[in-house]
């Protein structure tokens, strides 16, 4: 590993001159990201200049008190929201230049998202839910791959069940299968265990890490759970729209979690 990569790994090197298309290009390369909601006097600054570089394959926990901008940062990084200022390259794409539709296309097959409230499509079976992103990306054997992914998360027997017929844990497994089925370069998880009990939550986290490892994806998790954060290689803490700390694993993060 070169010095440069180590430094960027630490979140310390954030020069925009860094080439995103070099052979060892990071998955996320953000510089000076800003985001405001509302306009004029009512404008609220949510992100106040975020610099962040995430190398390929890293697992990163995003910590911070409510209102610190965690979800907004994830929305911007995953292309669900466009930053008001700054530069952002994700999976080789210059997100700052893409419109809403181009961002949607950029997500296809490359970015998986797991949300606290699962957000499965209620009218579709588990299998269809997992197959949908593959179909959107034009994958020919979408159903076969979806079935394999569901089997891998232990739901091989639930393929034709609808979300309403599944428990919360099972629904989140489907959501993980859906996010990971296209073998994405990058997976975002927004409080994936927030709606689950501790035991089920632990199982889901194990599953998420295991599946991510197999896919070789970069994983960025938003969480309040220190134990979960400790499982990640890197922990970034936000406060008031800025990065308050950025540390590598095996570090006690208790004093940065609000």
């Amino acid at each position, binding site marked *: 590993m070169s010095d440069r990569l180590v430094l960027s790994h630490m979140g310390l090197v954030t020069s925009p001159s860094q080439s995103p298309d070099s052979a060892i290009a990071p998955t996320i390369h953000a510089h000076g990201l800003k985001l405001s909601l509302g306009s004029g006097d009512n404008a609220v600054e949510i992100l106040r200049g975020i610099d962040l570089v995430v190398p390929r394959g890293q697992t990163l926990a995003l910590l911070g008190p409510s209102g610190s901008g965690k979800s907004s940062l994830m929305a911007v990084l995953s292309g*669900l929201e466009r930053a008001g200022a700054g530069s952002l390259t994700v999976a080789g794409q210059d997100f700052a230049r893409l419109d809403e539709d181009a961002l949607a*296309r950029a*997500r296809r097959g490359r970015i998986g998202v797991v949300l606290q*409230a699962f*957000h499965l499509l209620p009218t579709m079976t588990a299998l269809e839910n997992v197959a*949908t992103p593959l179909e959107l990306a034009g994958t020919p054997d979408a159903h076969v791959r979806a079935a394999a992914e569901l089997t891998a998360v232990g739901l091989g027997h639930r393929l034709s069940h609808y979300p309403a017929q599944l428990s919360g844990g099972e629904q989140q497994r489907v959501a993980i299968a859906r996010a990971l089925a296209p073998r994405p370069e990058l997976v975002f998880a927004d409080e994936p265990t927030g709606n689950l009990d501790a035991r089920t939550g632990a199982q889901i986290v194990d599953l998420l890490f295991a599946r991510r490892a197999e896919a070789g994806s970069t994983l960025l998790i938003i969480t309040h759970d220190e134990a979960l954060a400790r499982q990640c290689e890197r922990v970034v803490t936000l406060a008031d729209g800025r990065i308050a700390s950025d540390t590598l694993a095996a570090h006690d993060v208790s004093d940065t979690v609000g």
Partner: protein
Amino acid sequence: MAERPLPWRTAWTIARRDLSARFRGLRLLLVCLFLGVGAIAAIGTLTGSINGELSSRGREILGGDIELKVWQRALKPNEVAALSAYGRVSQGLRLQAVARNGDRTAPVALKAVDGKWPLYGRLALEDGRKVGAPPPGTVWITRSTAARLGIRPGDHFLIGDRPVVAGGIITAHPEQMSEGFALGDLAISGLELPREAGLTAPGAMYRSATRVRFADPARDPDTVVDTLKQRFGDEAFDTRTRKAASPATQRFVDRMGEFLVLVGLAALVIAGIGIGGGVSSYLDARRGSIATLKVLGATSGDIARIYLLQVGAAALVGSLAGLVAGTAVTPLLARALGALLPVSATLTVSPTALATAAAYGLLVALVFAAPPLVRARSYPALALMRARVAPLAPDRRALLVPVGLGLAAILALALASAAQPLVTAGFLAGSAALLGLLALLGVGIRKAAAHLPRPSNAILRAGLANLHRPGAQTGALVTALGFGLSAFVLIASVQTSLQANIERTLPARAPTLFVLDLPQTGVETFRQTVAAALPGARVAMVPNMRGRIVAYGPRDHMTKVSALGKEVPDGAWALRGDRGLTYSATVPEGSTVTRGRWWAANHTGEALVSVDEEFADAVGLDVGDSLTVNVLGVDITARIAAIRRIDWRTMGFNFVLVFSPNALEAAPHNLAATVEAPPGASSDRLLPRLAQAFPSASVVETGGLLKDARALLGQMSVAILAAASVAVLAGLAVLLGAIAAARASRTYDTVILRVLGASRRQLLAMQLAEYGVLAGVLALVALGAGSGLAWLVIVKLFEFAWLPDWPQVLAVLAAGLALVLGLALAGSLPLLRAKPAQALREL
């Protein structure tokens, strides 16, 4: 990376997966299209089959390629010779007569025909025979005449004083449609009978009808008629051709068709509103799915494709069901219209009508579903992460193509298929204006509700806030309620106006008998006969002859009727064909002179005439103008001395033209009389005595006529009501949909208020406050818009008097309001009944 849009196939896979098999959420769209397309399909199929019947059976209906009619004379030999040049000629006479068997009598409409009759088709008899003219001395009669006379086929009876044999019972008469409503039951005899029975003496009211069957079937009948008129003069005879075998029916069908098309368009506009509302709430409910799909990588174009396919599938199913129902219901409509129209009650499939209906339905679906679809494209993926984010600004330019093209196509389709494009265009413009007005009103109500001082009562405050808060359904509710309530007012006004017209047209007090062709010498005998058989009966007698108006207007530049062609002014029906004429020294009973002065009883010198006010106004005549009539081939010009208002409710002798005696008394003519029996008395004894005393006179019983007219108008009003109720049904569906959508949008508030301790009564009061404000404002709008449209239908389309029963209209409107409030409250009951905890779980 796939830059191209999602292939339609994949879009359909996802769309089908996301679509409930029972179209949950899209049922309003389905129902609205079903009703709209069904109505248009039924209307198209019905009018298509009627017009098809009229044109394909034109020859049979007319009984020839052309027909020439003349009052009180047969065609002259040179006229017959001219007709013979074109093909086979059949001559006949039409007159009223009385059939007798001992003491039993029956007035009949006698049709005397020569041996060549009928030129097309055959007459069907009850015994299964298909026949032509009866042999000499034989008469074909109807079942009811046979019953009244107490005879069977083979029995003898009298027509006038001439003995004849009942040869058979008529079951189907091909020319009935072109001959209109007869003043008595049909009897068909040989051509010689009227003369032998003394029914065609000079001055008698009979008409000859001569028909020609062209040797060359391809010959154009209109050209032949023009040639004949050039040779014999415009006024020589009334003509008809196979192309317009039954002008009265055609006029009725055209007018009815136009009305039905308007009803269809109304149903479609209402359906469109429902479609817009339905699709809008469907897609709102799909916000989560749309955002999820976007998170998974779907672009706004992909979203548009997926949901366009869903909406399209529902639209297709609704339209197809509408086409099937529209076709299936046509025989029922035909049966309801019964004797009104020449249409068989069999299932007919008209591809053009069905294609038009489907095109209308899908275009309307496109136009009204496009805005919510375009809006749905812009639901942001971020909606999943923040509970409620404002949608991105919809791309209004994306609306231009589907909405603009759809509207243009609808307009083109409507105008191309309209008999009166102006009326149709006016109606469409009116609908658009009403939509615009309601949209403005929606905005106005929102703004007003936002700026009103806040009520101190929390429930009222919440009710009021529901009208203007973000995401409020006020606009959709205002449109749906406005159209729905307008439909109620429209129906009530049309229905009560029609009813009043029926009652006004059909007098409560009418003469029992009309007697035609009484000789001038028989006045005293007639009075005595009536007095003896029916003591206390009122008798009125007037001179009666036929003539046609040939010119009218200021003396120095009179308008020639022949020069008007088919463009006879509205209300100037008296210009068409022969009219009854009379003369009188005094103002006739039931008339009031409104302008000018009546002539002196012993007036001599210039011929004078008095004209009915409505007719005078229709053609622009005034006192001092002149009028020329042709009576038995002689032109008589008279100066208009007086204009009268006729009370048509006195069903006596109401002549449009009444002359001064010196103008007409020299012309050969008979008298006509009315006999009004005292209440409860029957004319059964009078009829045989009259027939005996005046064998050449003809009698018309008004009882049957009134019954027929009442039945006819009744059928018409049923048909109108049936057609209009489709629009009302569509309105109700839209109303239900709007209320359901509005309810869905405030489920959250209701549940939270329940959790906070609001009682059911308080929540109901909140709903009442909101809907009460809306319904109150819209009732006024509906009263204006609904009655305006009804006025258009009654006065402009049907040319009836505008006589709505306002208390009844208001009662119907009140019922509509009650229905709206009832539906709104009933819609929220499930929510109110649920326990808060349970409702929270279901949120």
